[in-house]
């Protein structure tokens, strides 16, 4: 299987990855996902790996302000993008309002889904402000960015929480949305 031996050699590329405003010059294996690059290469372990297949949302980060699952995002494709992780949500030492609301509402238990919930909530609130509908938005109706609980629940359904903190997560987000 000579042929295969050649093919098993990693392909690497040089690039610059911008995370939370800091540019990291790195050499990446083309196979690396953003999630693994963050966690294993840059020691930014805030984004979590819950499934590695887009099915749980624990790895959610913002790419140019949009929430995505970093486990299905190839790092090589991000050379010209700005990435925000949970480590970058605070304004200096002042936590993001969602971060404080999560603690106050006890919107976390084990905390493993939490960074993904937070990044997802930040992206989600921006989507609502931009007028994006969800499946529970009334047909053709306009979107009230203050979002009722049904809207928040639907829009946050890409982030599983096995500890079952959903009702507190929704309360924390609702408080910030208003």
């Amino acid at each position, binding site marked *: 299987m000579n042929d295969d031996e050649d093919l098993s050699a990693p392909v690497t590329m040089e690039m610059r990855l911008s995370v939370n405003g800091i540019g990291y010059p790195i050499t990446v294996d083309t196979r690396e996902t953003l999630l693994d690059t963050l966690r294993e290469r840059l020691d930014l*372990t805030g984004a979590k790996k819950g499934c590695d297949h887009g099915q749980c949302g624990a790895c959610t980060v913002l790419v140019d302000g949009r929430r995505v699952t970093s486990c299905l995002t190839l790092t090589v494709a991000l050379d010209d993008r700005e990435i925000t*992780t949970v480590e970058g949500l605070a304004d200096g030492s002042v936590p993001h309002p969602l971060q404080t609301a*999560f603690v106050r509402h006890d919107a976390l238990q*084990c905390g493993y889904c939490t960074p993904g919930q937070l990044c997802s909530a930040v992206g989600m609130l921006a989507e609502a402000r931009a007028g994006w509908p969800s499946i529970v938005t009334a047909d053709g109706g306009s979107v009230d960015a203050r979002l009722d609980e049904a809207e928040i629940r639907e829009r946050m*359904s890409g982030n599983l929480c096995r500890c*079952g903190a959903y*009702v*507190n997560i929704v309360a924390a987000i609702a408080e910030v949305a208003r």
Partner: protein
Amino acid sequence: MTTVAARAVGTEADRVEGLEKVTGRARYAFEHPIEDMVYAAPVPSVVARGEVIAVDVAEALTFPGVIDVLWHGNAPKLERVGNAELHVLQSPRVAYRGQYIAVVIAKTLEEAREAALRVGVEYAVERHDVGLRADHPRLYRPERVNPDLPADVQQGDPDTALAAAPVTVDAVYRTPAEHNNPMEPHATVARWDAEGLTLYDSTQGATSLRDAVAPLFGIEPSSVRVIAPHVGGGFGAKGEPHPPVVLAALAARRTGRPVKLAVTRQQMFSVTGYRTPTIQRVRLGAHPDGHLTAIVHDAVEQSSTIHEFAEQTTTPTRIMYAAPNRRTTHRLVRLDVPTPSWMRAPGEAPGMFALESAMDELAAACGLDPIELRIRNEPEVDPETGLPFSSRNLVACLRDGARRFGWADRDPAPGVRRRGRLLIGTGVAASTYPVYRSACQATARAEPGGIFTVRIAAADIGTGARTVLTQIAADVLRVPLGRVRVAIGDSALPRASLAGGSSGTASWGTAVTRACEALRDELDRRGGTPSTGVTVSVDTTEENGEPSRFARHAFGAQFAEVGVDRDTGEARVRRLLGVFAVGRVLNPKTARSQFIGGMTMGLSMALLEESVLDREFGDYLNHDLAQYHVAACADVPAVEAYWVEESDPHLNPMGSKGIGEIGIVGTAAAVANAVHHATGIRVRDLPIRLDKLLT
């Protein structure tokens, strides 16, 4: 008995590690930075039964980055211990599909994973048997059931009583295999050095993991250190040790380098335990006024061929209701399946689904309100042992819940309430969970600056343990919360029991209380804190060893409202409310989270969760979170949790009962009973998916 002067305890203190968790600074097992580490990717068996004849390591070794490939032919030898699941890579035998049979160690995650996919394995395949049946010829009675209870218990003559009963219910209930699926997959970083083995592991018990791993490698527990400051959920799956942690230690030993190993979500369906499927027959005999004369509850469950795990499915039935004639049994069959283990309220959750569904059926048969039926059968003393209950407030929970939920004007007729295209129904079920407590050690130290440090190898898997222990310590020391640090999650700390059986706070809290009391006494004796600080140590073995003269259990009641779409059969919960009697609630904020979390998991169990067995290949087929559905945010509307005042002096210095599991216990039955009320359809096999409700 000492009681704690209430100051911090009982208040809604925020989680002490909350900020660390919301900022991403809290480090979980796989996230501890270690120099020179390498990655391990396990190779799972693709047959369910047979023998590994050959593993082609040569090819994988030529892959770039690959350092080694281990299998039973070249793995370091382990000592034998009681649980054969932990004899990883020690024999050619394959006991279930997905069992780890080799491991690739490589420099990067990508290289390890790719090489693992391409390790060639040759098997001698044997026919497998993975089908659980109530009439399986190899059913047997286990010696004991988890944690250490008799398999069968009988009182009176239930068969005769059933035959004579004017009203009977005789029904078979089934619960599927379910997987714990904590959000953080099991992960380990293992490192050997001159001092021994260090494991950063996602575990519910640093001490117990240390004690389990050390003998495998023939070393003293003191040569193993387990570090687990934060754990991304467990729900029992990180209680008993499982093969991955052993494999990581083995790989690190062999390569001489620190090894990181994370179980994939898919692999978690084979190697990290799950809730056994059950087939349960419940028979109730009663007078027309609802008074029970006989209760018989028989459960059939499975375990693997290499390790017996016998779930205590029918044990809650032993204490729930008064009836002179009663029998509860467990039968097990060893199949070529992965080994089941603990999953949140093992026994109570599936067992009470069956019993509490049957009680609902009996209420209908007697024309009685289901709450009234339960009240009529409330026992004076523990029906099995005759011991008095240390406290039992099930009736108060039912009554308080009924009031809050708006049960009073409920029309019992099924299938008659409509709202648009929805059929609406409400249901209730009771819950119970035993009070457990284990011996622990703890130290408390006063620093000259007025700071106190309490040390105990407890675990916070999301329960709020770190916070509650801080509150307990602050009160005993009579200082504000901010002056107390509680160090947990490390086996180098004083030994502690694991986070399981809802016993954590009771066990650790007792030790923390005693340590802080001793420290207070010491400080009184010395007239203050010496400049070098002062430390005291305690051990609760003796205190814990005193047998109780009481039956000690927590109780609760869940109420559910569901809507079922008449066109599609889609059932969704609209409202969930629970009231619990759990002794003293130490932190209402984190306690409420435990209750709503448990109820949310119960909702998920009721409507969604099922691990689907692939009969042809022998594994669980839907092994990821897109196919194995756990409740998403949209599934979970209003969930409310309340508790009744309960002062119970026979528990522990805090006066608390465990709260981590009772939330799930009655929820599935409450939902199923609500679905029956909505539709008239009695679903006796979980989950209640739409095809079961389509008419």
